């Protein structure tokens, strides 16, 4: 692999990794506040992309309007999901909650297939598609939008969690539900916020990603899985760890595809994330189990 090729693979890895990072952030926030793994997380990415396509194409909205509206609508859907399904089943066992979110995921997926059909769609590029040369690599403008938007979203989330009352309350209920409730924090409201934020983050990913990668009703499962792997690499600990996990996964995948594996073609790219997940489980199951007991 030449230096130029390496740069190219690195850039595409970081681009893809930014999307994984946004999904991983969603997983991490919901898990921190509610101890639920939301298997519908990937569907938010799909919804963001699909809605932005519809608003821009069919409704003919300008991008400045269609993009925020897609994100906002998805956040509302995330909130509705929480109120209708998760909160009603709040006292249920872990396995029930997993199944509820899986049910929600395939429900959203099925509805999307009815609404948008089963073909892939491409929302318009934000600023054209003229590749920009950079350090021997060619970067497509949309890739810059993806990386930039993810960066901004992460920074905004960090500021929100650190410097606003709401954000601090979210953090508090992530540390201890009981203690948070004792100082007067409405922990149910915080859980609702976590779902809304996670949905919005997923939708942001979908909105910026779809012009480059296209989107279809069934992309959610794979993106959710990759995001979960990214969050596992980060250990579900902090937003920063989730972002690092996402970028790491993206770069590893991209470089692995660049290597010539002989008969093992790039069709196996998707297997890399899962093998990573199994490795993490094997290597860290001891320490993770200890943490679970402590928590």
């Amino acid at each position, binding site marked *: 692999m030449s230096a130029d090729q390496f740069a190219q693979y690195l850039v595409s890895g970081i681009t893809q990794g930014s999307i994984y990072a946004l999904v991983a952030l969603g997983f991490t926030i919901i898990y921190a506040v509610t101890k639920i793994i939301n298997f519908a997380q990937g569907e938010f990415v799909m919804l963001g992309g699909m809605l932005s396509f519809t608003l821009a194409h069919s409704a003919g909205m300008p991008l400045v309007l269609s993009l925020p509206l897609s994100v906002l609508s998805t956040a509302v859907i995330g909130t509705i999901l929480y109120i209708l399904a998760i909160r009603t089943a709040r006292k249920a066992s872990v396995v029930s909650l997993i199944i509820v979110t899986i*049910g929600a995921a*395939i429900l959203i997926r099925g509805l999307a297939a009815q609404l948008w059909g089963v073909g892939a769609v491409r929302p318009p590029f934000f600023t054209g598609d003229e590749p920009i040369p950079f350090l021997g690599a060619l970067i497509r403008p949309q890739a810059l939008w993806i990386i930039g938007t993810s960066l901004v979203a992460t920074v905004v989330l960090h500021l929100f969690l650190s410097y606003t009352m709401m954000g601090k309350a979210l953090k508090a209920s992530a540390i201890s539900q009981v203690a948070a409730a004792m100082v007067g924090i409405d922990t149910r409201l915080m859980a609702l916020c976590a779902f809304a934020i996670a949905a919005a983050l997923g939708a942001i990913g979908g909105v910026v990603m779809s012009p480059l990668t296209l989107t279809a009703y069934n992309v959610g499962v794979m993106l959710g899985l990759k995001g979960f792997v990214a969050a596992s690499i980060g250990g579900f600990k902090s937003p920063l760890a989730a972002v690092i996990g996402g970028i790491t996964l993206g770069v590893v995948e991209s470089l692995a595809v660049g290597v010539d594996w002989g008969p093992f073609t790039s069709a196996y790219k998707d297997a890399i994330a899962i093998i990573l997940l199994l490795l993490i489980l094997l290597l860290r199951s001891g320490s993770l189990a200890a943490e679970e007991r402590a928590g």
Partner: protein
Amino acid sequence: MLRRAKGNWTYFVIAALLLFSILIPFDWFLGRYTGLVILIGISTMVTVGLCLLMGYTGQVSLGQAAFYGTGAYVSAILSKTYGVNPWLAMLIAALATGAFAYVIGYPTFRLRGNYLAMATLGLGVIMWILFRQLSQYTGGPDGMAGIPYLSIGGFVFNTPFKRYFLVWLFCLVILLVSQNIVRSRAGRALRAIHGSEAAAESIGINVTQFKVKIFVLSAVYASLAGSLFAHHLRHVSPQSFDFMASVKLVVMAVIGGLASVWGAIFGAATTRILSDELLLRFGELDVIVYGLILILVMIFMPEGLFVKLKDVIAQWRLRYEQRGTKT
């Protein structure tokens, strides 16, 4: 009073059901549904494993179709391409799948909750990719056809009528074995785990080991079902083992009831009839129905639809009995 009410009734119901199920494949009865009922039997075998897994380990596998598919493909490849005896192929498939499940299960069961679900979901995706990509062995996306029938001596299971009895014999054996496990020492250990893991561990039950065993058992069930599937349809393709196939299996288990053995038949039958007969013409609509079933059943009757129905019927009968004694 409940016990007395059970007595004669139960035997009568069992005898009637047995007669009914023997008559199903005859042409003058429900013969044209034989194919469907065979598939229900095959799905039941996978579902029992999932019901035990969900009910007794508190975890769920979202990749059960991977084990099902492994059974089907190993059987198909060994018996068709390499000319191995189908029964031997089936055995090899089951052993391989069980070993495979052990390797996945051991690290994940030390963790509570979500990891097994994600690891198995991932496993399902990997296996699906392999079924599609290893086309020199698996025939790629089109799958492979011409898989030999099962046979005993000179007796070949070459008609649906014969295979109906073969599949349901397997299914019945698996149901009875499962019921025995649940009622045995192991079953009591499992119920103790279900009640409180800490308490179970403190009386000397190796919680992780029991959970892994159940997981391996469920994988072996799925593999056997997959082998039967391959030798029944004589054609396997990756579509039968994708993510939605795994979700459908979870739907069957959820309808059948967590920790319930006989409910599996009910779950498999309901789901199979829904997707193969009723919802077929509506395209992707069945996915929406399954999503709703999963959410609603888990919220309102987390122990499963079948178990709930059983409770309701038991209550009715009790009320009926009481009225009987008063007058």
